[in-house]
Every structure is written in structure tokens, then in C-alpha cells.
């Protein structure tokens, strides 16, 4: 089992990082009732862990016996029926799902599942009616309509159903929902807290930690606990016993973005056209193809451009499922490290501009490439004015 899962706190008492929040949450559910909750904070800060701890606090150990289910919901929308497939995680008392997975029809899922849950509500031994909890992930990715339809359903079925919403940024959740929930902000753990957790894990695993090693991992983790633990485990696999100057392996995609950044700092050129001489060369090769000759074609094609190469690399990142906005952010980070102060303002303006465009547009690659091209033109202009 990965350490991330192995050492995930199971109850609210075990948490190390957000002790004050856990304490408040415990107080909140002592009366066996809770309001709707909205958890928000950056990724890797422990939202999910706290939610699971809270569920366990309310429902007892039964909350951990979850089963994964892939259900098809038949939804009657006026004149036609819609089939929607969605994976849910459910126990006897709670259901967890990410309604944004179904895209623009998320509205139906929200209404249908809540109604379904309200219909068969649990009854405890004393014959009293209880409530179920619905955990919705990524509410910030829900469409506007889904959010609007959530607001009334939240009130209508509040006697039998509590919602726990979880998202990265509460800016994208509409005001009406925010005002109906108790908002819980989960901040990213500080570096000291990460160090504390790493030392805790090290002790449990019986590892020798050289001084300053945990701090270095924490520093590289960008204040994400999940990432810190993952890279800690990677280090363990790579080399043990640890040495205090052991290199902490960066994520390979970050390396890659860093490479792209150096590339475009080095040379700024769009794709140039292949000239006539080269076309003739290619034609000659194609008449008598040998391995050696084909290589030369490749060399001609590759030599032409920088922007073209960058495009290939960007595609590589995207096909490996790195989200485009993360690529853009990382690229900006790498570029800002290398730039003069006066250019930084302009570059960050364009990064924001193209990220916004990317959100509105269809294909991310256009906007990533546009950003690279824009950067090249600005940087080249800057070089020419300063150095002539």
C-alpha cells in the first residue's frame, strides 16, 4: 500500500495537520446533526481526509465499508429519457460522486440522486428517521444550471439529506450555495507541518532521517502534503539509508516543462519553410530510400524550427494527461525564474490572458502555443532593443 493511503488519518482524532478544524468538526456533529458543509482549499491539503473522518465520526466504522458502483440513471426529461452513467462510491449511509463527470447534463444527476436518497432514508433501531450524507466532489466544475437547481433541492430535502461539497476554489461556486452551507476553508499545510508528518511516517516505518532531509522534501512539495509523502516514498525506494544531500527526484513532467522553457529562451523562431534545394533533396531520397537517407529527411524537418519543436513537446505533455492549465502555470513559473523584472509583468499578463482564452476555447494546444509564440516575440523584441 502506498504511504499516502497507509498513513491517511482514519478518524478526526488522528489528524496531525488540521487539528483545530478537526476539533471544530467534532463539536459540530456531537449533536448528531450537521448543517450542509462546503470544504474548499488547494489540492493536497486534506479536504477528503477530513470529510472521511467526519463521516466516520457520524456513522461509525460502517462509513468505511464502501462499494464502488457503476450505475446508469434513467432520467425522464419531459419528452425523452436520458441515460447517464456515473461511478459512485457508497456505504449504507453515504454516497460519494463527482457529478461533473457527466458534463453538461450534471443537473439531472444532482436532482435525481438527491431525490432517490430522500426516498429511501435510513431508519434506526428506535424507529427514528435518520439522514444520509451526499458527498459531491468538484462542485466548482458543476455547470451553472446544476448549481442553481442544487440550491432549492438542498432546502427541499434538508430533512433527510445532508450535502458535503468539496472543491478547490469557492469562487466558482455560486453565492446562493455558499450562503446555504457552513464554509470550511482548508489551507495548505505549512512546511513545518509537512516536516512533522514526514517525521511521523519515518518513525512508524523505522527509517533514519538525516537532519534537513524532510525539510528539503517539504520545500519542494509546493505545500502539498500528498506530493511530499509521494516523493518521500520515491526517495526511500531509490536509496536507503538516506544521505543528507540525496537528490530529491522532481516530477518528470516538470523537468520537461523546464526543458521547454530553456528551449524557448534560447532561440525564438517560428517554423521556416523548407526551401527548394531541400525539397529536391527529399525527392531524391524518396526515389531510393535507405535508412541513412530517411534520417537525413528527418534532420531537415527538425532543423527548421523552434516553435515547431515546442509544439511537439507540448503535445507530448497533453497526451500524458497533464492538464493544460497546469502546464501553462508551470511554464510561467519556469520563465519567471529566468526573466528580467521588467518583462515579468507583461509575461504574467499574457499567461493570464491565454489561460482565460483556453477556458473559453475548444482546444488547449492552440492557446498554449499562442502563449509560447507571444513570449518569443516579446522576448526577441526585448533582446533587440537592449542588445541591438
Amino acid at each position, binding site marked *: 500500500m502506498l504511504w499516502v493511503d497507509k498513513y491517511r488519518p482514519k478518524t478526526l482524532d488522528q489528524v496531525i495537520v488540521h487539528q483545530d478544524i478537526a476539533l471544530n468538526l467534532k463539536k459540530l456533529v456531537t449533536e*448528531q446533526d450537521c*448543517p450542509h458543509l462546503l470544504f474548499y482549499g488547494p489540492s493536497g491539503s486534506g479536504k477528503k481526509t477530513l470529510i472521511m473522518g467526519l463521516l466516520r465520526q457520524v456513522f461509525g466504522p460502517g462509513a468505511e465499508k464502501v462499494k464502488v458502483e457503476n450505475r446508469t440513471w434513467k432520467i425522464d426529461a419531459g419528452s425523452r429519457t436520458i441515460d447517464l452513467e456515473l461511478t459512485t462510491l457508497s456505504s449504507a449511509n453515504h454516497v460519494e460522486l463527482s457529478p461533473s463527470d457527466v458534463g453538461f447534463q450534471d443537473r439531472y444527476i444532482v436532482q435525481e440522486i438527491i431525490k432517490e436518497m430522500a426516498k429511501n432514508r435510513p431508519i*434506526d433501531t428506535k424507529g427514528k428517521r*435518520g439522514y444520509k450524507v451526499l458527498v459531491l466532489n468538484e462542485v466548482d466544475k458543476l455547470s451553472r444550471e446544476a448549481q442553481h437547481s442544487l440550491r432549492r433541492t438542498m432546502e427541499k430535502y434538508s430533512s433527510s439529506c445532508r450535502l458535503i461539497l468539496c472543491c478547490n476554489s469557492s469562487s466558482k461556486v455560486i453565492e446562493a450555495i*455558499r450562503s446555504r452551507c457552513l464554509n470550511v476553508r482548508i*489551507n495548505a499545510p505549512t512546511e513545518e507541518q509537512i516536516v512533522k508528518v514526514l517525521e511521523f511516517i519515518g518513525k512508524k516505518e523505522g527509517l533514519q532521517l538525516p537532519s534537513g532531509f524532510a525539510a528539503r522534501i517539504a520545500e519542494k512539495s509546493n505545500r502539498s502534503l500528498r506530493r511530499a509523502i509521494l516523493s518521500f516514498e520515491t526517495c526511500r525506494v531509490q536509496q536507503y539509508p538516506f544521505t543528507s544531500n540525496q537528490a530529491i527526484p522532481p516530477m518528470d513532467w516538470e523537468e520537461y516543462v523546464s526543458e521547454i522553457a530553456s528551449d524557448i529562451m534560447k532561440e525564438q523562431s517560428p517554423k521556416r519553410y523548407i526551401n527548394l534545394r531541400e525539397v529536391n533533396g527529399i525527392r531524391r531520397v524518396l526515389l531510393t530510400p535507405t535508412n541513412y537517407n530517411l534520417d537525413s529527411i528527418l534532420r531537415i524537418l527538425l532543423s527548421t524550427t523552434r516553435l515547431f519543436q515546442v509544439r511537439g513537446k507540448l503535445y507530448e505533455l497533453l497526451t500524458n494527461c497533464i492538464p493544460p492549465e497546469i502546464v501553462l502555470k508551470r511554464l510561467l513559473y519556469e520563465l519567471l525564474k529566468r526573466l528580467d523584472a521588467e518583462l515579468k509583468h507583461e509575461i*504574467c499578463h499574457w499567461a493570464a490572458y491565454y489561460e482565460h482564452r483556453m*477556458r473559453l476555447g475548444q482546444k488547449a494546444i492552440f492557446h498554449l502555443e499562442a502563449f509560447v509564440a507571444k513570449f518569443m516575440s516579446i522576448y526577441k523584441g526585448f533582446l533587440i532593443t537592449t542588445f541591438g
Partner: protein
Amino acid sequence: MAPMLQSSQQWVEKYRPRQVKDVAHQDEVVRVLTNTLETTSCPHMLFYGPPGIGKTTTALAIAHQLFGPELYKSRVLELNASDDRGINVVRTKIKDFAAVAVGSAQRQGGYPCPPYKIIILDEADSMTEDAQNALRRTMETYSKVTRFFFICNYISRIIEPLASRCAKFRFKPITEEIMSSRILHICKEEGLNLDAEALSTLSYISQGDLRRAITYLQGATRLFGSSISSKDLISVSGVIPQDVVEALFTACRSGDFDLANKEVNKIIAEGYPVSLLLSQIFDVVVEAEDISDEQKARICKRLAEADKCLVDGADEYLQLLNVASHVMLALCNMPEELNYES
């Protein structure tokens, strides 16, 4: 074992005024409606104003007072944004309800029970234009037996033909005194201890929205028990502490991009909602005395653009960084590059 559910009601519902005369601060509306209660004649109505000041409360109260609990179900239709309200619903549900005739006026159990039905369309500004158009004729055809109550935040989203058929009432934002007296009333009922500082904080963070104020109060009570300080309220409401905003501002004043970048990173890691931060920056900028009008204009323009981008779903970090960079340029009187416009 499933936990038991205690009948802990939302305070917003618990303290909702049940009678029109209890509605705070909306004198004209109350006067007209009390008159309605006496004469039982009533025009179509359109209530508009910011959220949390009693529009829905008033509409529900008048309906209850006119018909009483028995007839309420058969005489009042309540529709809001979470119900499907496309043109189909207007054509079928509303029309069917409107078309049913009602008996003549008889007083029943102390309620006036006038001979018409009421359709309350809450959040009417989120209806599509087509649906609103479809309503026009329906309103007139059945005006003998049906009264419409439209409730909305923005009157400009209601099409003119509908608005002109209604008596319009603007609901005023609730003043601080009325809000305080209402909050203190609830505190007394619930046995809460609220000092003067917390009270003023509450009215500041809720910005005239009584519903929000009551929700915050209840949230804080649940977490922190019966004596509430202003710090508790701030942590419940999710308002960003002033020193965070100040720190960002100081970083911008320094003119050092990397410093501002670090500050922005910190804010994002703390998980503060950026849309809220923008409006708090706006407050600081507008009130600051040492910033010239031109600088203010430059900053505000950027804030507006960033806000729009956030609504479109753009990344919070990049937008905030962009705002910070522009605030810095404006404060340090550095020229913006001309080629910023695409």
C-alpha cells in the same frame, strides 16, 4: 446505526416573519399590502431588490394571510429557479393552474379568501425570455382569477411587457439599526451573547443581507457555543482577514515583482477565494487616500477584467498574479506597455 435527526430548524426559517406587518423596513410595500388585506383587491406585483431583505418572505406572508393554511395549497402556486421553468412549464403547469376557476369570496376562519389564486414566481430573472413572453398573454387572459407575484433581484432582466403589467415595488436594503435590532432579538431568543464589536462585524460582513447575517450567526453558534466574538464570525463567513489584503498591497507598493508573486502564492495556498479577495482589494483601493484618481481607475479596470475572467472559470492564481502586477504598475507609476491590448 443511522443518527437521529433533531428538529433543529434553520434560524432563517424559524425567524421568518409570518405576517406582512412584521416585515422590517419596507414601509410602502407593507402599507399597500395591509390595504390589500382589508379590501381583498390586489394587482399583479413585482418585487425587486438585493437578496436577503424580505421579498420572498413578504410574498409568502401575504399569501398565507389571505388564504390561511387550509386553502393555501389549492390557491397558491410557488415556482422558483430549481423547478424546471422553461417555456413548456409556462404553457402547461402555469396555464392549467391559472385556468381553474375559484368559488366566490367567502370569509373562512378569519381569512379574507378573495376569489382569485396567486402564482408566486421566485427568482423570476432567471426565467428565459421566451418563457416570459409566453406569460404575457396568460397573465391577461386569466387576470380575473389569478394574480402573479414576480420576485427578482434585477428588474432589468424582466422583459418590459411583463413589468408594465405589474405594480412595482423596490425593496430597500436593510439599514444597520434595523439589522442590529433583528439580530439582537434572535440573540435574546436563543440565549446568545454577542458583544458590540461582533455585532458591527456581523453587519459589515453580511452587507445588508439579513439572511446571510442569520446564517453566519447560526454557523458560529454551532461551532463556538453561545458567546461569539467577531473573530469567530469572520472565520465562519470566510471573509478574508484584512491583514492578508494589506500584505498583498504592501508587496505591490514595494515594486518588487518576486515579492508580490510570493504573496500571491501564499494566498492561493491558504485557500482564500480570489473573487472575494478582488472585492476586498476594491474596497481598499477606493477608500485609500494616497492613491490618485488615475491610479484608482487603472486598478479598478483590471479588477473588473479579472472578475469577468474568474466568472468564466479562469485560473485563480494567474488572475490574481495579473491583478497584483497591474496594481504594482499603477502604484509605482510605471507605464503600461502599449502592446498589452491584443
